[in-house]
């Protein structure tokens, strides 16, 4: 005999979160923008086989003037469209890796601070505050000059200045979660601190941290663009910021070589921020009712 179903089948949390995410038009638009950016950066270089680094046409060619360079050329005749399609992967890769470094540092410091509290917390939070008000760009500029500019220096440098907001958030989550019954039960069973921090609390603290990480990626992309604009990125890599920086002195002669890469950065960061906001709403039950 079959049991009669009286209780509605509970929806899985993942499905519920997805429903909230896609019910949010801004988040959906953000995701579409990101998909376009990703596809363009992955497939673009193959579909549009023009070299981004070499002179392929006359310099200062406006967009649409020559069908072989639809977005025009820069001051030494490099194709702007090729630069945009090829520069995306470097920009996104550096931004995402730097954000990962920042999130790992932030979660480590924030979790220790929030879990132990007391003097440890006070000291670590002062340290965090110090990094938060430090003029980050100047600090990274010092790093880049003392240690030769390379893709690794860029990533580590950005990671070193981007972690404070994640640390504060992780701390808040840990302070909230450490008083939960399941954590207390684990403690009563004699679990060591390391286990409680990494295996009990962290998995439960992750959803808001993931949403925040998306925002860190956005800021890191902007930061990388700023560094490359100043000419402090890896000189062998074409990125959107590097394109803008390279054409900085020729902005009145070929504004398009500055305009289009900027639009690409803007759209990517906007997409990341919209998705991050959407994730935040989807993963944070407190915001669901709104």
């Amino acid at each position, binding site marked *: 005999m079959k049991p009669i179903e009286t209780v509605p089948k509970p929806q899985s949390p993942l499905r519920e979160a997805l429903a909230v995410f896609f019910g949010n038009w801004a988040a959906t638009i953000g995701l579409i923008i990101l998909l376009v950016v990703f596809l363009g950066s992955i497939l673009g270089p193959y579909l549009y086989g023009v070299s981004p680094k070499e002179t392929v046409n006359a310099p200062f060619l406006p967009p649409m003037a020559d069908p072989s360079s639809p977005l025009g050329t820069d001051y030494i005749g490099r194709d702007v469209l090729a630069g945009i399609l090829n520069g995306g992967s470097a920009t996104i890769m550096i931004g995402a890796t730097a954000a990962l470094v920042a999130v790992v540092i932030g979660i480590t410091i924030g979790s220790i601070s929030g879990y132990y509290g007391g003097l440890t917390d006070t000291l670590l939070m002062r340290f965090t505050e110090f990094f938060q008000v430090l003029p980050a760009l100047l*600090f990274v*500029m010092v790093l880049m000059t003392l240690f030769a500019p390379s893709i690794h220096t860029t990533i580590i440098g950005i990671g070193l200045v981007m972690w404070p907001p994640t640390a504060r958030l992780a701390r808040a989550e840990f302070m909230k979660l450490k008083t939960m019954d399941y954590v207390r039960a684990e403690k009563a069973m004699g679990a060591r601190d390391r286990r409680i921090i990494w295996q009990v609390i962290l998995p439960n603290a992750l959803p808001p941290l993931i949403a925040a990480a998306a925002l860190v990626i*956005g800021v890191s992309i902007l930061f990388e663009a700023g560094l490359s604009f100043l000419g402090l990125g890896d000189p062998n890599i074409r990125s959107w910021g590097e394109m803008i920086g390279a054409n900085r002195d020729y902005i009145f002669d070929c504004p398009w070589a500055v305009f289009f890469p900027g639009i690409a*950065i803007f759209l990517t960061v906007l997409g990341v921020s919209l998705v991050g906001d959407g994730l935040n709403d989807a993963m944070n039950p407190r915001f669901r009712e709104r």
Partner: protein
Amino acid sequence: MKQKLLFSAGLVVCVVILNFFLIRMAPGDPAITLAGQAGGADEETLAHIRKIYGLDKPIWNQFFVYVGKMLTGDLGTSYFYNLPVRDLILERVFPTVLLVVSSLLISMGIGTFMGVLAAHQPRGLLSYFVTFFSLGGYSLPTFWLGQMLLLAFAWYWPIFPIGGMQGFRVEGFLPQVADVAMHLVLPAISLGLAFMAQYSRVARASMLEVLGSDFIRTARAKGARESSVLFVHGLRNAILPVITLAGLQLGQILSGAVLVETVFDWPGLGRLAVDSIFRRDYPSIMGILFASAVVVAVINILTDVVYRWADPRLRSGGGH
């Protein structure tokens, strides 16, 4: 207040320590690093640097010599200009502070104003604009925005000057002030817009909260005009989180200033930092990091004073 002062002093000391260790961690001889010039310094200069920084003494000794020098304002010598770094920096502090403070005023003023109006009609057009603007403004690269403003309002429509801080041959005090103000408009807007976007969002959120409280109902009940309810009774409370956020973001604003100064050829600290990097002028760039920490510390204390002035609850409590 005491806490704020301690924190500000701590910030400055931390940057000094950071600088010291960065010089030691850099590959190669610290004397060469301190001399700058990409290792092109002559033996006499190097010997002189070793002597004045005590580089032949134990490391803790070097540390105290370095900290002592920094805190008494001796930031070393820029071998590029052959001038003390302190003098170079003092020349550049005013333009940077002028730029940073005017963008702060623009972004806090307009941002809060927009946020308050948006909160007045949470489902209104302006409210949606604020939500959209805060995300968009946040995603714009500051330097690119500056370049676009430059293209539009200095080149295509030549309303504002293309760069620099002063024009040539402007005589008299008032014309000079007006001239600097004209030069300031585009850089200040470029630097301030991203922050304005964030402040409008924060002000809208806090104002929405404030508008539900009892004293607003009281104000309305006694027949106060809506504009007075919003801008006299409400604004005071809505602006507090904006001030807090602005205080936390001072470092970011200075970072933005480095980029904006580069775009507009603004003769400030950021410009000097970028130039020093390409000249491998390490004493200057480390001195600028130090000076920027001092600027952040001082403005941080000032925001605290403004906060106390804006929040009467803290004023009566004394708090010294």
